[in-house]
């Protein structure tokens, strides 16, 4: 018990700062996605960072939710509720990983689709897909998710 508490403490000092920064980045990316979506509907002007952030309301919702969770986590941390804070972090990172996995699945699917339909595959576009915001940030979230899940399962039943 004491041991797991030790681990818990040590890791939470590492994870909390990273996840707060990550949460802010997710929130900003989410807002940009909304702006891009708006630019898309009005058909006016260029997208912001169009290579990385699509104008998609859905993905902006996901990224903002991740941001929300990170903020919630920080809030719990300051309220001296470290366990709840960890739960929020883990779920936020989990959602981040899920969004990343989905993006990777979609890229694989469009590659397979190219083969099936017999059209030339635009490899450049596929590669850019791996660099989309939710994918990029997801790679960072993956190891953190693993660590926080480990801690969480250690301190709970």
């Amino acid at each position, binding site marked *: 018990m004491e041991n797991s508490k030790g681990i818990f403490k040590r890791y939470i000092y590492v994870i909390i700062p990273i996840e707060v920064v990550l949460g802010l980045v997710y929130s900003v990316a989410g807002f940009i996605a909304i702006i891009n979506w708006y630019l898309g509907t009005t058909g006016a002007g260029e997208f912001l960072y169009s290579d990385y952030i699509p104008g998609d309301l859905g993905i902006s919702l996901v990224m903002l939710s991740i941001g929300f969770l990170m903020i919630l986590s920080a809030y719990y941390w300051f309220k001296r509720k470290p366990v*709840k804070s960890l739960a929020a972090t883990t779920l936020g990172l989990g959602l981040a990983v899920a969004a990343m996995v989905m993006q990777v699945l979609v890229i694989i699917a469009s590659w397979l689709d190219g083969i099936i339909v017999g059209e030339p595959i635009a490899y450049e576009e596929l590669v850019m897909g791996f660099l989309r915001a939710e994918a990029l940030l997801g790679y960072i979230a993956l190891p953190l998710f693993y660590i926080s899940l480990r801690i969480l399962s250690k301190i709970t039943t």
Partner: protein
Amino acid sequence: MARESRRVKIALAGIPNVGKSLIFNRLTGGRAWVGNWPGVTVEKKVGTLRVNGAEIEVVDLPGIYSLTAYSVDELIARNFIVEEKPDVVVCIVSAINLERSLYLALSLLELGANVVIDLNMVDLAEKEGYKIDYKKLEFLIGVPVVPTVATTGRGIGKLKETIVKAIHEKKVQARIVDYGRIVEEAISKIEEVIKDLAPELAEKYPARWIALKLLEGDSDIVGKVSKLPAGKEIIDKANQLREILGKKIGDPESYIVKQKYERVLEIVKAVVERVAVPRVSMTDLLDSVLTHKIVGIPLALSAIYLLFRFAFEVSVPLADLVDVAINSYLHDIVLGIHGLPDWLTSFLADGVIAGVGAVLIFLPIIAFFFLGFAILEDVGYMARVAFLVDKVFHKFNLPGKAVIPLIIGFGCNVPGVMAARAIEDENERKTTALIAPLASCNARLPVYLVIGGAVLGASAGFAVLSLYVLGIILALIVGLLLRKTLFKGASSGFIMELPPYMMPRFDNVAIKTWERTKRFLFKAGTVIFLGTVIVWLLSVTGPEGYLGPEALEDPQLLRESWAGILGQLLASTVFSLMGWDWRAAVALFFGFVAKEIVVSSMAILYGVGEEKIVDVIAERHVFTPLTAYAYMAFVLIYVPCIATLAMVRNELGLKYAILALIYEVLLAYIVSLSIISIGSVLGFR
């Protein structure tokens, strides 16, 4: 030995979320006959347990908490036990939900069933820091208890052995609960009367149980007894005793239930032992975030968004594979067969194969959607979503649970309507089944994409999203109207067991996905297929007789077909205010069969391939943005497909299927017209 030569039969009973279906699969190997219980739309599953060369029939009873006459499921279960007399009733008791599980077990014992207790999920109880002394439990209730872990298969062998043993050694523990001197006296008085006046009744049911039910005032039993010749006398006696009891202990029914629950608590107290200091449970911790007031809803929406991405984007290669295989390969093969008459070639290529294609192209999307949904459901997340939306749904007189048929409806309305079964209250169930078709299913999306893409340009994405939202809003409003008019009455209450979060199990997920997809494939598929063939037939024939397959390629000729004439009629009469092209009107008419057909019949009607339809609609200015949006809204609201109506009829009866048809068409008309009139007032075109 003069033994009846009937098959040995056992029944599985248990409260919801105890792992009953998993135990059923473990016992029967997963193969089951699935149908309905006679007269009601409650699913019945029957399988076979093979042990030591013997074959035992296993009947899965509905998930129930008790054996009252208040709920259809409970009546089914108790009538089955009384009338079919299964050799053994296996009661699955959850170690992490001991109290409610044992309450059902005691109810089964009182009914005189030969019970074997399967104490499931003992591993989870150990994780929670307590152990259940199953030997002591066995001693206290007097029937065999077998601890199992269904997820890993631990204890299943022992369970099978115990069942076989119990078939030969019947144990009856009808007196398991002592209701106290006052009630017990009353019970034995009624028992005597029953044995004297109606011995045939005492043979069928345990007399003690009948006596209890009469004291409780159970409507079903009172009805049955009063039909007997000596019925009136028995009922009078019971009522007299009820009155006397009422003065001493209050409402007898309430008293009896409480006493039984007290007995349960006594047993629980005796058999549960704490073995470790409890820690925070993972489920509570996750729930503190997942059901959070502020972040809960965006999280749920995010999960559903990712589910949609999974269904629509990840399934693309499979859908295209089906498309290529059917519409190119198979189509070409048929066209390549020489020596067939023209009409037959056209029938096969444009009718049959196009019909099969229309169904199968959607199969991957729907299967992926249900796969993702089944995972969310198996994890335990959907129950939390019901909690999150309950407050809003309550304002519309609907239970939070009604959100699940609506979400399933996003995949395919047919299983969506069927999912309304899970709602206990009859009025709420009917309402939910009737509004589920307003969830915008997968088949409507291509219509939005084609027309929106062609006419609305950059705002197409937003228009599509708004239609999904419109569907849900309309569902809630119609739901409220139905609950205020046809299905009045207070809710019988939305109560749901909240299971702990669990890793999804492959077999559970696979079975659920398959069952729902199968419903689309067979129920929707056959109807859609027939519909496509009818579309073909109406397009190649007209008042002048057979027009030949050229009609499908020549718009002028098509005008002369039944379909063309009908479309012009519709466009010049009911749809004249909408400003839709006659071809669009025909496509709507064909869309009655299924939304899958709308785009393909438009393509036929404009005389182009499906891949060019977007360009044609854009170039020819078929729609203005406003009429396009009204058209999309119409497609969203009016009857999703014949298969959905067939499912409504199946679940609620013909009357309600007709009601659904009428309200949906009317609503679609009203909403479209409002969009056009309000839109033009606001200056949209």
